[in-house]
């Protein structure tokens, strides 16, 4: 055990080594979050006024809606997750981030890939596969960028001082393997020169979408929560064995979900998928038990701690969204919920609820440490928490309730189809308020991130000028890497 003083020194050095890569990842993520929510808002406007974008091909619902989903998933969730992962790996390794230049380049590649993808969808170049709408050119960039960041993460992991693994390690390492595998599979089988024929495309796409939107986000989100919750609550994770059990069962069962009960596929596939969904209740229960036992008794003491609230409510929303997913996979329930707004509600809850909340908490907790100064607008964090929480409950809640109503009307052949659509309009319009709340919250989040970046850049510029203007014998200071210059300031 190191003396406290040297330990804090090390921690700040580790944090400083992540500074530029994390800013590059989080800055783009915050921007895509705002852009994605604006696109989602443009999409939902179609249900307020159908002919709003009738003359504008770019903004027609079928293009804006997938663009919004992808901007949120690929633009916000994944880069934010990668930034948090890099930091957790560095902290758990007790060593500085390895190859810090690589993730900086990769972050820019990634965001360029997302930009190309989103513009391609809006101009009508979407691939037509759910959650894989980005065309080939953009996929190549995303894939390369992910690999580069994974290399840096694995190198940091390899340089760890303490050889023993922490539960977060399992989840995050698995996530590093997961994405390249599923993304390359989906691209090679669906978008390569000889894509698979017929409904095999549907099977591959469903497998990919489930492994990305459910399993990958769960791995990273839960891994992150297992790192931060014990830290903030000041208690060790309860317990490693249960976490191991949750990890194994999650990756064993969760990966088989995602095929609809009535999909036009051989009957063994939906049957297997429903069974897996029922079994996924086991890891879900284990994760909830771990989280509850870890924070038990400390909630009262920490409920004013915003990162704790973010991550805690993120775990609650994970429970709800996973339960919705499991329920929708049950044939009796899926008869009503399938093809309704219930499905989008679950996806929104997973992305904007569980995952975004967890990432907000983690970023608010780690960014001041990484930058070496406090958030520029600390009060925004609390407001953002309530805006996002109320927003997602309103948004996903009204979609889900509207979806069940729609499903019941669809299920009854004597009700005209138009009635099922009309019944959902009210809920979609109510949900728009929720979406606005989330948008406001994300603007506050972006304000904090951008103000922080700006502050850091100004400090960097000032120290550069100071170095240039300094007397000749000290010009060697300008050769120092930027992180040290930042530290002089802080």
């Amino acid at each position, binding site marked *: 055990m190191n003396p406290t003083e040297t330990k804090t020194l090390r921690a700040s050095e580790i944090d400083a080594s992540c500074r530029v890569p994390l800013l590059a990842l989080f800055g783009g993520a915050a921007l895509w979050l705002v852009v994605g929510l604006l696109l989602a808002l443009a999409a939902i406007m179609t249900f307020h006024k159908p002919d709003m974008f*009738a003359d504008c091909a770019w903004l027609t619902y079928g293009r804006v809606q997938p663009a919004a989903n992808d901007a949120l998933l690929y633009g916000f969730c994944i880069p934010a997750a990668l930034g948090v992962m890099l930091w957790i790996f560095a902290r758990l390794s007790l060593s500085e981030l390895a190859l810090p230049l690589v993730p900086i380049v990769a972050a820019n590649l990634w965001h360029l890939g997302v930009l190309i993808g989103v513009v391609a969808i809006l101009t009508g170049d979407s691939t037509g596969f759910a959650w894989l709408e980005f065309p080939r050119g953009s996929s190549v960039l995303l894939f390369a960028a992910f690999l580069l960041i994974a290399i840096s993460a694995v190198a940091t992991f390899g340089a760890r001082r303490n050889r023993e693994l922490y539960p977060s390690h399992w989840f995050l390492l698995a996530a590093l393997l997961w994405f390249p595998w599923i993304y390359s599979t989906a691209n090679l089988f669906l978008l390569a020169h000889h894509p698979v024929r017929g409904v095999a495309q549907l*099977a591959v796409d469903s497998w990919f979408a489930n492994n990305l939107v459910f399993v990958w986000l769960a791995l990273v989100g839960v891994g992150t929560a297992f790192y931060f919750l014990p830290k903030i609550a000041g208690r060790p994770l309860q317990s490693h064995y249960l976490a191991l059990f949750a990890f194994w069962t999650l990756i064993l069962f969760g*990966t088989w979900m995602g095929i609809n009960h009535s999909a036009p596929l*051989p009957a063994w596939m939906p049957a297997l998928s429903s069974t897996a969904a029922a079994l996924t209740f086991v890891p879900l229960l284990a994760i909830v038990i771990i989280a509850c036992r870890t924070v038990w008794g400390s909630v009262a003491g920490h409920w004013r701690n915003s990162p704790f609230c973010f991550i805690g409510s993120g775990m609650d929303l994970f429970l709800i969204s996973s339960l919705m997913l499991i329920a929708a996979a049950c044939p009796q329930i899926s008869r009503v919920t399938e*093809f309704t707004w219930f499905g989008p509600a679950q996806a929104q809850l997973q992305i904007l609820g569980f995952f975004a909340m967890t990432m907000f908490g983690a970023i608010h907790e780690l960014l001041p440490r990484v930058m070496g100064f406090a958030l520029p607008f600390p009060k925004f964090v609390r407001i953002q928490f309530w805006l996002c929480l109320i927003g997602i409950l309103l948004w996903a809640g009204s979609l889900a309730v509207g979806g069940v109503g729609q499903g019941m009307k669809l299920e009854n052949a004597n009700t005209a189809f138009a009635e099922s659509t009309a019944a959902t309009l009210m809920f979609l319009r109510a949900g728009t308020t929720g979406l606005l709340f989330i948008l406001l919250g994300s603007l506050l989040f972006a304000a904090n991130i951008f103000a922080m970046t700006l502050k850091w850049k100004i400090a960097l510029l000032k120290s550069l000028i100071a170095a240039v203007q300094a007397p000749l014998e000290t010009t060697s200071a300008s050769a120092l890497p930027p992180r040290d210059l930042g530290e002089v300031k802080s």
Partner: protein
Amino acid sequence: MKNGFSVFLAAFIALGLSWCGFVLAPVKQLGTAKQAAVLNSSDTYPLQRPGDATLGLQVYRANGCAACHTEQVRQTGIACNVMLTDFGAKTSNVIQAVNYILETSALATRTGDTWSLEHSGGELKVPATISHGITKEDADNAADKITAAGGKAEIHIVATGADIARGWGVRRSVAEDYLYDYPVQPGGLRAGPDLSNIGVRDPDLNWQLVHLYAPPAVVKNSAMPPFRFLFEVRKINAGAAPSPDALQFPKDFALPAGCEVVPTAEAKQLAAYLLSLRADVPLYEAPFTSVMK
């Protein structure tokens, strides 16, 4: 798990298993699928879509139609109808058998077109539906009784479920329906109606185009966004004949005076694709008896 390699191995095994199950297996099982035989016919299904319709699939993809429309009919099961097709030599015997069937059992759910007992003595018309919506076993029993009495009976298989009852299809969607499509877009949300059989339901090209240009003109309170960017509004020059492609609108639709709406090539292709959506033949996996109307 003590080291990075064991975590890697665990993840590799778990993901590898599901990859084999849900990627490799379906690709092996379905990736080489060929046309299937249509039941009770020498035809094969599906046929390649016509050129325009194949291009139209790409317009459908580019504009994300699948965001609101499914191409996937669900079915809860099958039911049988028993039809009396011939009285044979002894009409009275058959009538007796039919009455017996109707009286003794829950075999007959009496709906409008069921055989009516009261008029069985009067005008005898065949074919007539004896029992409606019963199980295969019961239908076999009923058919056996009629055959034993010297008559002739047919059993018609019909698909059941809300989607079928809405007229969205005659059977559930199966793998063959998507055989030649790339990308396959079955959709996941019914903000709009299912389109698996839109080519059967609304085979009128002009109707499809008008609906794309201004949905409320043909469907009251339609929530569909209009796709005006797929059309061109042109001034009709004085003395010139209107374009042969110009849309024919319903009477109460107000179009700017002296103008006509002409579909672009994309709009025509999209409409051709919609008209090519017909999943209406019986297959081994999804049987039903086609009835000529």
